[in-house]
């Protein structure tokens, strides 16, 4: 960059790719389990080298905390590393998601053309699974898992994001079915070597990890995104609550969504 940077300070949901730091690479080498680098430097450092490969992680938080952005960045960084990623969306249209990726510094349209990034509609998957009614029974849940895994196998995908799993859980009706669905999906994806992020929406002001209280118990990892009010300032925060197969920081970090990616800084304590 030779000249002054032109920046829109109001930029939102903009993400970037960067290779992991040397520290991260060393941590990966030292780790027993193969890791899947999210490509978000700060998060990979918190996780001491990324998410253990094949893990299913719940990314949870209230609206506007950056869940979808984090999921998109995870998929796009993987695609840059030749790992096909599938983004299953229930909340946004594929076109809208594609549009929101364009301002990212690292976004390259060829990733879409080459099929490295694939957007799938959850409603299409429901159709494939033969689910039509408002409620999904155990048989329907099993068919949905099959449909997701078939999509993963077909594309040889190594990363998957479901945005959001809450919309599926809402139709599963019982805690047992939710548990069965997430466990089944998690195991099936791990078998395919696919690392997954399930996005969970929680109501504003709540201090829960998921609306049904089951999701966080059955997944391998939980990343909590939130808002922290401090003396009238509202800060976006990120905290890794659990991650099976990885030693990790449990500290809270402040998050910024920029055109060069999700950036993280330690939350200052001020001696308090």
């Amino acid at each position, binding site marked *: *960059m*030779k*000249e*002054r*940077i*032109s*920046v*829109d*300070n109001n930029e939102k949901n903009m993400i*970037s790719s*960067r290779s992991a730091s040397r520290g991260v690479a060393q941590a990966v080498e030292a780790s027993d389990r193969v890791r899947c680098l999210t490509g978000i430097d700060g998060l990979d450092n918190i996780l001491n080298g990324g998410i253990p490969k094949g893990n299913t992680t719940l990314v949870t938080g209230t609206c506007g905390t950056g869940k979808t952005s984090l999921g998109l960045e995870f998929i796009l960084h993987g695609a840059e590393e030749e790992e096909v990623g599938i983004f299953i969306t229930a909340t946004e249209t594929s076109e809208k998601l594609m549009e929101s990726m364009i301002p990212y*510094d690292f976004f390259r349209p060829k990733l879409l053309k080459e099929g490295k990034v694939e957007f799938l509609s959850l409603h299409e998957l429901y159709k494939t699974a033969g689910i039509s009614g408002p409620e999904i029974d155990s048989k329907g849940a099993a068919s949905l898992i099959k449909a997701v895994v078939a999509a993963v196998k077909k594309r040889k995908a190594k990363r998957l994001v479901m945005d959001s799993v809450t919309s599926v859980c809402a139709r599963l009706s019982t805690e047992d079915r939710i548990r069965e669905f997430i466990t089944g999906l998690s195991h099936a994806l791990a078998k395919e070597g696919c690392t997954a992020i399930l996005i969970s929406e929680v109501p504003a002001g709540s201090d829960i990890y998921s609306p049904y209280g089951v999701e966080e118990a059955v997944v391998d990892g939980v990343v909590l995104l939130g808002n922290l009010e*401090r*003396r009238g*300032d509202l*800060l976006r925060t990120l905290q890794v609550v659990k991650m099976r197969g990885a030693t990790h920081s449990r500290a809270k970090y*402040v998050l*910024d969504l*920029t055109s*060069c*990616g999700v*950036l*993280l*800084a*330690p*939350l*200052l*304590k*001020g*001696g*308090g």
Partner: protein
Amino acid sequence: MGKLQEMPPASAIALQMGAKHYFDAVRALLDVFAPRKHLHSIYVTATIPSKSIISALEVLDVDLKRTHFVDCVSSMMMGFSEKDEGAVYVESPTMLENILLKVEFLIRKLDGADSVVIIDSINSLAIHNSLKILSEFLHILINHLRSRNAYTVIFAMEEYTTEEVENILSLVCDETVNFTG
């Protein structure tokens, strides 16, 4: 300025000055120090809006093509609407983590180019923040910038520098340089 020029990359320097030398110091850094060392400047202003600094420096014919602003005061001003395209804005000087994040954002945008990060000033930041959180912020910022091989220059206005602020500067900086114009 000679002492400043001798400092190696990754140094943290407290630049002490009287209020009357303020613009001379800004000019010396942006127009002499940074160009001689082929550095981009990331100017964090918590004192006056970036637009005012830009206007003043343009009058002095200072080339600002390689200067990038993190403006922590403009958003606090009532009726503020016009933004400069070369600046990123932090809503308040109390949002110290966001200052860290905006500095990191600009460093990434510079794509590895050598840089100096100027904090204007510790006194202004001390108005809005407790000294404990300010020390923590500077400690993290400077160590991060050292890892990026970037210079850190922290302005300290003689008239407003208390003993506690001096202690923070001596703790986090390698050198204190008195700017006398």
